[in-house]
């Protein structure tokens, strides 16, 4: 069984947000929801200011606080380590959201508004075995059950009143593709693969470069490793005072 993980090279990230866009298109997430988010940080003061970017997917923690607190087992860890949400089990208590140190959970406060996604798109060739992210339409693969657990993973649905978050694009990983954000990154800043496989791209990068993980002190043991930079310290400020409120 593979042990999937992600490596993010902060030196390579130019803050283009292609990953964010790819995620929205691939997973047809509702308004104001960013399963992949890219921070823009400002550090120090003029003339020593440094501005840098940090993508933030779900960390798919090994000791995931969200999995621990879920009262009904809707949030679960798959055998391959992907932390997924069975949106048909979720009761919408949002405990996972307050438990998560990284703030990656998004609740469906309402049903998606009409016309947000095309449901009249007829593109049969896109439904079968393409290796590109899908256009923003109802991708039937998102809804399917996956893995040994044979459970929903929070793609699809977009049901009102349940929690969803980054799935590492389970529907793509199950078909031997990398997540959409990794696929779309023009800078090769994002990498995805099996952490147990010495020859995988993630293992090779981690063997060569010094890496860190975010918020190690919470002992969540995330599976997203960062290289080529350092963790945001206390005096790092987020430049985008963005509240993508709905």
């Amino acid at each position: 069984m593979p042990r999937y993980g992600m490596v993010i090279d902060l030196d390579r990230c130019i803050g283009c947000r292609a990953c964010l866009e790819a995620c929205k298109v691939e997973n047809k997430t509702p308004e104001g929801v960013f399963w992949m988010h890219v921070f823009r940080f400002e550090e120090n003061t003029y003339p020593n200011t440094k501005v840098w970017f940090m993508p933030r997917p779900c960390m798919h923690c090994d000791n995931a606080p969200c999995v621990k607190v879920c009262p009904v087992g809707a949030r679960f860890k798959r055998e391959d380590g992907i932390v997924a949400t069975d949106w048909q089990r979720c009761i919408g208590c949002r405990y996972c959201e307050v438990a998560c140190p990284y703030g990656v959970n998004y609740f469906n406060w309402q049903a998606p508004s009409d016309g947000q996604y095309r449901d009249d798109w007829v593109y049969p060739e896109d439904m079968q075995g393409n290796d590109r992210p899908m256009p923003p339409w109802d991708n039937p693969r998102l809804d399917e059950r996956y893995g040994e657990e044979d459970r929903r993973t929070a793609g699809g649905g977009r049901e009102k009143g349940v929690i969803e978050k980054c799935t590492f694009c389970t529907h793509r990983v199950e078909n031997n593709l990398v997540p959409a954000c990794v696929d779309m990154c023009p800078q090769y800043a994002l990498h995805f693969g099996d952490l147990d496989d010495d020859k995988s791209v993630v293992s090779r990068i981690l063997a060569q470069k010094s890496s860190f993980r975010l918020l190690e002190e919470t002992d969540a043991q995330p599976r997203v490793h960062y290289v080529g930079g350092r963790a945001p310290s206390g005096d790092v400020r987020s430049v985008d005072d963005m509240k993508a409120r709905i």
Partner: protein
Amino acid sequence: MSTAPRTERLPYGVGRVTGQWLVLVLIALALTVVGVVAFAIESQQGLIATGMRNVGTMGGATWGLYITFVVYFVGVSFAGITVAALIRVLNWDYLKPVARIAELLTIISLILAAIAIIADLGQSLRGLLYLPMYARPQSPFFGTFTLVIAGYLFASLVYFYLDARRDAAACAKVPGRLQKFHRWWAAGYQDTEEEQQRHYRASFWLAIAIVPLLITAHSTLGFVFGLQVGRPGWFSAIQAPGFVILAGVSGIGLLAVIVALVRRALGTQQTLTLDMFKFLGKGLMILTLVYLYLMAVEVITAVYAAEHHEQIIFEAMLWGDFAWQYWLTVGSLLLAVALLIWQAYTGRWSIGLIVAAGLLVQIGAVLKRFLLVVPSQTHGQLLPYPQGTYSPSLIEYGLIIGLVGLGILAFLLFMKVFPIMEVSQDSPEGERT
């Protein structure tokens, strides 16, 4: 207690509808309707109708007024079982008249808490089904649903039912429309010598069993917050004891207020004596002082040596976005304590001042719970997200108003079908016809 009229009329106005009572019922009903409408709108639109939003990039708080009041209602429920258990275990007989009011307060507030949780869920119906079906003991929520809402409520109901059987048997002797109901409640209880013995034994052991449940239940609710390592301001060992103490403060405070209202409404000045209020007042004073101490310890730790994010939260509370709620909490608790200490010092107790203190601590209790739930979400993100905001929407206020109305309604209705205070005297030589 006079025995003559009891043969024809039920005690404490049971079964007799007065104009005043009807007006109160209509007001409570109107408030309840507000809540029902709010819940209907929320169910139809989804939780978008509330002021809650996602933490992090959406800059909101995902738990808000509902969770605040879940904690508040569960806290209020503290009073009933404590008082009832203490009466049995420690033989505090002069508190006996308030026992039933207190138990009723426990039961009603627990039901209100359960409804508030259901209103907070994104998938309410699914929650009712799945919470028992797929329950996970590893989740701190499990304790809330099993120990608090189920175990605590069930234990209270059993205690309430058994404890009231003597009165039900007494009431069942009075002919009328309610006779059948009282006979059903008494369930064959005849108040013979042997049955009385069994009655006392049963309620004594039930009371003993309930006391540990009381501590664990309120602690469990504290653990819902206190065990979250990723949430600065919540992650603290002080949460569990703090919850138990503040539960006592709000519960005993509200009990004093309700007992004073019942006293006024039924004209039972002889039974509900000043001594009894004194006892409630002293209890409230001690618990509030302990809670203020805990608050002081919490603030000193956070301001002096807490890690970065916790300091941000406390700065927001002490002189930032949440300052008015914080200082209003501190002010109301301090004022309540001052009122009580003054009375204890001079030895001149007045029911009015005790009730005032009881009302003041309600303000403190609600706001303190709000300050527990919200700032850690809007200002306590460990990653450098921009700070969030949260203000409850009208729907949320409406639902809470509805819950309060429902609670009042339940109290009023119960008062007319069953004596709200104990009728039977404990002494075996007491007259019962």
